[in-house]
């Protein structure tokens, strides 16, 4: 690795600016000096121009490179995370005193609904997708995603849908029936106005973005892996992304169907959920939770992949039990589809039917246990580097395991009937989701920030942030277990003083403030480090997977030459053998990436990828208009269908000259 350790401070351009901005055709940017991976300087320069995302504000809407889109996904999702977090603080303020009136019941219900929905649909899934879109192609050694334009389309859909959803709050049009949006409360009879319509249309719309991301991640991982990266050499994170994508593929249609049926109930008076006309309110719950439970694991699974990546790098060991970890991830994916009824233990279903789901819900402990003990076996006796990413991983261990254990408790039907819909459950799922998803995401942020920006984040601030988040989190959420057992139901906008819940609620509010401070430090750290962080070099952590084989930030084309892989830790191999094997013969004057077979990743074709184009943005705009119209009239469906179709044709229409080769 000639330039692995070369300090390269001039290169960090920050997360906001795409690599190659303002690069003139004549003057060579520094990072192509001397070529790379055996590719000459002039060729690399041409390749970089080919893969460049054009500069300028208007051109921003034409970008298709996965690094640009992935970065946008992550930043947008972090913005939504911050906003939804502020809503959480508002709720904690309201609950700090009994009969408080910081928020009235109307505002509280809207804030609660938007907080839950945004955290799930606008933060957690897109953040994981963003990480996957940014990292998975790099990790499998591809030049880009399989469908870069679809990728861009998905981003605009998410951006527009999420923004509209959030804007409903200041306009007082926000949904207020909870993120689970149970009928009949969300029916036209009990929720007039546009709030619920905003929920149903925007959720369906945003799911489109999740589905596009899932399809292209699957295809990218199955077909665009570097030659030699057979399935047993894929990084665990990539396995996790693959399983996540399949889960999205099979879970999201269920919520799309549910919200489409509700949309129809509200818009054209169908009777799916109207008990008086033969409908069934429980149908909504089945459909929603058949999506809703896998959803939790959709968020968790890639986080487990992040944890594995970090454990491997910071112990400098290959992971113990590769097959067992793959099994665990696939197993979690499998079991997650068989648990949804445990959200419905109290709806009066037959006991024997519920007993199936009790067994299945507890079953999730096995794959989770296998994961945790594989990590322990990997760390056992290793010289662990306790840098910030690893500290967040340790925090993840403590919180996630605690949340998992309460999860086993609520799997039990009789116990769940006591704590269901109480603050005990609020505590449980925040332990699982914040512990199992936000901690790994922050760990991943500290771990991959240098790769994405070329600069390190501050260790000192990172440690402070980790400590505060850990303490604040436990202070905020541990007392909620007790509150639930004392009888405090969820989703209450206030409580009476004589219930005796005041002190614990005050503790929780104090904890939430500390938690917010911890997050703010990381946010500030990231913002400051963009400019002031120490230069990172290609591989600051000595990581084993292919993303560390390119520059930081990655080249426009990701890799000057795509790698050929011989093991699961290609970068460590290279360092040991002082040899790197590559793919040659790809053209530099257009966007080409190698296509390989599904199982063994043997090369068999070359895919020519499209360059910058505004059509995905136009399509997304038209589709958004159609979905917005659906809030008001069913005819928007017909109109939007054909309008969107026209933009798709324009998008795919072959441009002359038709390629001949």
């Amino acid at each position, binding site marked *: *690795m*000639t330039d692995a350790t070369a300090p390269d401070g001039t290169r960090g351009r920050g997360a906001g600016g795409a690599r190659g901005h303002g690069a003139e055709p004549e003057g060579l940017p520094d990072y192509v000096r001397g070529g790379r*991976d*055996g590719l000459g300087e002039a060729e690399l320069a041409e390749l970089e121009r080919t893969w460049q995302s054009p500069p300028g504000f208007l051109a921003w809407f034409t970008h298709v490179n996965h690094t640009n889109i992935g970065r946008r996904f992550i930043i947008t999702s972090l913005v939504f995370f911050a906003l939804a977090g502020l809503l959480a603080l508002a709720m904690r303020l309201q609950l700090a005193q009994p009969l408080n009136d910081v928020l009235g019941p109307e505002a509280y219900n809207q804030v609660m609904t938007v907080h839950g929905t945004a955290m799930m649909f606008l933060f957690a899934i897109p953040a994981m997708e963003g990480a996957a879109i940014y990292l998975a192609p790099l990790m499998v050694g591809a030049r880009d995603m*399989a*469908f870069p334009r679809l990728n861009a389309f998905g981003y605009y859909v998410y951006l527009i849908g999420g923004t509209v959803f959030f804007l409903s709050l200041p306009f007082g049009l926000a949904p207020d029936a909870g993120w689970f949006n149970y009928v009949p409360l969300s029916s036209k009879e009990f929720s007039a106005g546009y709030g619920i319509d905003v929920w149903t249309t925007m959720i369906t719309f945003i799911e489109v973005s999740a589905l596009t991301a899932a*399809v*292209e991640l*699957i*295809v990218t991982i199955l*077909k665009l892996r570097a030659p030699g990266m057979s399935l047993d050499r894929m990084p665990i994170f990539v396995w996790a992304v693959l399983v996540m994508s399949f889960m999205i*593929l*099979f879970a999201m*249609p*269920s919520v*799309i*169907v549910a919200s489409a*049926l509700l949309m*129809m*109930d509200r818009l054209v*008076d*169908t*009777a*799916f959920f*109207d008990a008086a*006309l*033969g*409908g*069934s309110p*429980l*149908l909504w719950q089945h*459909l929603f939770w*058949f999506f809703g439970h896998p959803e939790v694991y959709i968020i968790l699974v890639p986080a487990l992949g992040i944890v594995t990546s970090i454990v491997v790098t910071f112990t400098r060991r290959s992971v113990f039990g590769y097959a067992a970890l793959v099994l665990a991830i696939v197993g979690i994916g499998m079991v997650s589809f068989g648990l949804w009824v445990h959200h419905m233990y109290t709806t009066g279903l037959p006991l024997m039917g519920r007993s199936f789901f009790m067994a299945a819900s507890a079953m999730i402990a096995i794959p989770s246990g296998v994961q945790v003990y594989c990590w322990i076996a990997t760390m056992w006796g290793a010289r662990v580097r306790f840098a910030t990413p690893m500290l967040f991983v340790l925090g993840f261990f403590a919180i996630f395991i605690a949340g998992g254990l309460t999860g086993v408790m609520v799997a039990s039907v009789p116990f769940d009937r006591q704590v269901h819909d109480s603050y005990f459950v609020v505590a449980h799922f925040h332990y699982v989701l914040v512990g199992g998803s936000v901690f790994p995401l922050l760990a991943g942020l500290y771990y991959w920030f240098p790769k994405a920006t070329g600069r390190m984040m501050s260790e000192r601030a990172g440690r402070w942030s980790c400590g505060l988040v850990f303490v604040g989190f436990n202070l905020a959420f541990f007392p909620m277990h007790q509150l639930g057992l004392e009888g405090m139901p969820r989703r209450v906008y206030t409580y009476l003083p004589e219930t005796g819940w005041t002190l614990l609620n005050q503790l929780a509010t104090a904890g939430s403030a500390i938690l917010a401070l911890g997050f703010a430090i990381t946010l500030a750290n990231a913002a400051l480090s963009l400019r002031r962080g120490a230069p990172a070099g290609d591989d600051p952590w000595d990581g084993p997977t292919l993303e560390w084989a390119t520059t930081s930030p990655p080249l426009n084309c990701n890799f000057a*030459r795509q790698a*050929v892989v011989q093991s699961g830790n290609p970068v460590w191999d290279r360092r040991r053998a*002082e*040899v*790197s*094997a*590559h*793919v*040659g*013969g*790809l053209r530099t004057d257009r966007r*080409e990436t*190698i*296509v390989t077979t599904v199982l063994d990743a043997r*090369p*068999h*074709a*070359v*895919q*020519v990828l499209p360059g910058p184009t505004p059509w995905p943005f136009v399509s997304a705009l038209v589709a958004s208009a159609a979905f917005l119209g659906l809030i008001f009239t069913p005819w928007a469906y017909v109109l939007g*269908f*054909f309008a969107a*179709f026209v933009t798709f*044709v324009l998008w795919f229409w*072959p441009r002359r000259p038709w*390629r001949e*080769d």
Partner: protein
Amino acid sequence: MEHRIEVDAAELSRFAPHDHPLWWGILGAVAIEAAVVANLLTSYFYLAAQAEAWPPDGVDPPALLWPTLVLFVLPLSSLTMWWAGKGSDAGRRRQLALGVTASVGLASLALVFRSIQIAEFDIRWDEHAYGSILWAVTGFHYTHVVSAIVGTAVVAVLAWRGYFTPERQLGVVVDTLYWYFVAGVFLPIYLVLYWAPRLL
């Protein structure tokens, strides 16, 4: 550090229409839509199981004639689609264009049958959950057929203009794949909507 070229991509195909990532992408889209159909049909059975009478008293199950015709016309249009693909593989542009156009025609015919049959439904969507799910499933498949038709119409235009060659026929291949799905998915819908209320 020694850099070695182990795989030479210069010789590899740039087209590979039958094995292109887009082929897999369409498969993904098909999986999503199949999941949607599965959800809708499961909802149908769920509502049926909750109901006291299914279809509700005084409502007849939808007539069999038109959907049964559709059941034959849609596979027939798949056949012409397959024939068009054969032509495309062999470089017979005329066969491709004719086949694709025939498919569009046949599917439009199916759409006409479907419309007649919808007009004959014994119940409106807002009268009972049975009517709601009947209309919803029918409407969903109707949309499928329409999108397959307009998509294939675009392919037909390109085919008549001579865009496709044996290498450059990805559009035909993926459109055919989606077409098979639209034709095939009618079978479970047909069985559930038209036979389940008669047999169960």
